């Protein structure tokens, strides 16, 4: 337990010491909020769908958590390049604990990023449907964050450099995000897109976020929760399995 705690604490300390990282990771979602929120807001309203900012914010929060959790995998690549990984690999500690401590730390900082985006959204005029329900979004962000940091630990364990890591980001994570219903409602999309979205775990995270923040859901909250739980378990297993075969 102490080992997991100290490795978690390492990530938290590094996060607060790197202001550029905090700001950098907020820039992108903020751009999405402003450009899409204001750019498409009026069309969305004209189409009779209501307030686009309300619809968009839960998706952007999920985006923030998704991408900052993916970035955690890059930290493992840096740890290898700067040699620190060797220090943990010769320590008399199970690989599972090393993986989990770091992933929990990365997940915690990702959720913090999500909260910052939420606060900015409040300033822009977003208002949650019910403040008590809104607290559930912390849970959903936490689950997504831990699932993705476990996944990115696994990726970081066998991808040797940043270029390879970026390729996975480009070809896997960006498509998962854009095809998830985070940015547009899935009601009127072509069937192929709907099917992809329904197989995509990010869709269920976004849906659960909407349920807690604006009180609407497409799949039903229990479907969302089950999908999130399965995603979490599968990705933790993937992360642990890959991390066990890591070579420093």
């Amino acid at each position, binding site marked *: 337990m102490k080992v997991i*705690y*100290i490795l978690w604490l*390492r990530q938290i*300390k590094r996060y607060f010491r790197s202001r550029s990282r905090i700001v950098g990771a907020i820039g992108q979602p903020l751009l999405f909020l402003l450009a899409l929120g204001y750019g498409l807001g009026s069309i969305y309203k004209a189409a009779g769908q209501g307030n686009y900012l309300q619809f968009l914010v839960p998706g952007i929060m999920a985006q923030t958590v998704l991408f900052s959790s993916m970035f955690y995998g890059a930290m493992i690549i840096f740890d290898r390049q700067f040699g620190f990984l060797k*220090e943990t*690999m*010769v320590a*008399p*500690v199970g690989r599972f604990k090393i993986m989990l401590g770091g992933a929990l730390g990365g997940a915690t900082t990702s959720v913090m990023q999500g909260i910052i985006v939420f606060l900015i959204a409040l300033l822009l005029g977003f208002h949650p449907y019910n403040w008590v329900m809104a607290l559930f979004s912390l849970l959903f962000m936490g689950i997504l964050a831990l699932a993705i940091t476990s996944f990115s630990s696994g990726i970081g364990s066998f991808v*040797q450099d940043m270029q390879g890591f970026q390729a996975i980001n480009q070809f896997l994570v960006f498509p998962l995000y854009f095809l998830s219903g985070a940015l547009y409602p899935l009601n009127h999309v072509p069937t192929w897109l709907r099917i992809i979205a329904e197989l995509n775990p990010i869709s269920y995270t976004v849906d659960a976020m909407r349920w807690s923040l604006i009180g609407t859901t497409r799949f039903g909250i229990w479907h969302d929760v089950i999908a999130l739980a399965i995603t979490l378990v599968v990705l933790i297993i993937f992360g642990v399995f890959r991390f066990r075969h890591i070579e420093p």
Partner: protein
Amino acid sequence: MIEVSHLTKKFGNFTAVNDISFNVASGEMFALLGPNGAGKSTTIKMLTTLLKPSSGQLTLNGYDVVKQQDLTRKSFGIVFQDPSVDNDLTAFENMQLHAVMYGVSSKELKTRVKELMTLVELWDRKDSLVKTYSGGMKRRLEIARGLLHHPRVLFLDEPTLGLDTQTRNLLWNYVGNLAHEKKMTILFTTHYLEEAEANASRIAIIDHGKLLTIGTSEELMKQTKTQSLEEAYLYLTGKELRDEQADPHEVWRARQRSRTMR
């Protein structure tokens, strides 16, 4: 304290370490010498559980290195060839993290860290981020860290590379004391033969993955009918230059990757 018997490591068709056997006694300072790519680092990686041997038997502090990994890991400290500290943590935090991972009790932690960091003359800089440290300071910190959990064996992989004379002097004095007074077993590699001559009780020379010879520096000179350790070394390993090749493990891995891409 360390028993290596018929140790072999193959990467694909390439044999990085080829049937090496030697023993190191408790409290001994043992030098492993050889040109670049001879198999020194691969041997150390296997002794420190970072790599699994292809065949052979490894025992450290009475533990089977392959089967009793965690007990082995508790028994040794290591200073790697390249820095392995977290630059974004302070020196004290690096020490603390190590202590927790090795199960040093929180009661002992503070006094032990202070004692060791004072010894390597870094205690007054304990709260600085490690990225503000010079190469020599990082190395001193790593030595202090490697000793934190009372290891019985200390591995030093080219510990003096790029260090100034003062730091090298301090390092060897201190390491010598550990061996003589605390009976700690030291296994080190170096390219500076005078360091091996001055500090090692016995020297092993390996090249192309094979153990060429083993003995005190006098024995090596006598054996090769030469006047100095350097002459003996060159007599055994030849004078041609070695390419500063990446470690065979990396080369093998790169080849595996390009194969899966195809």
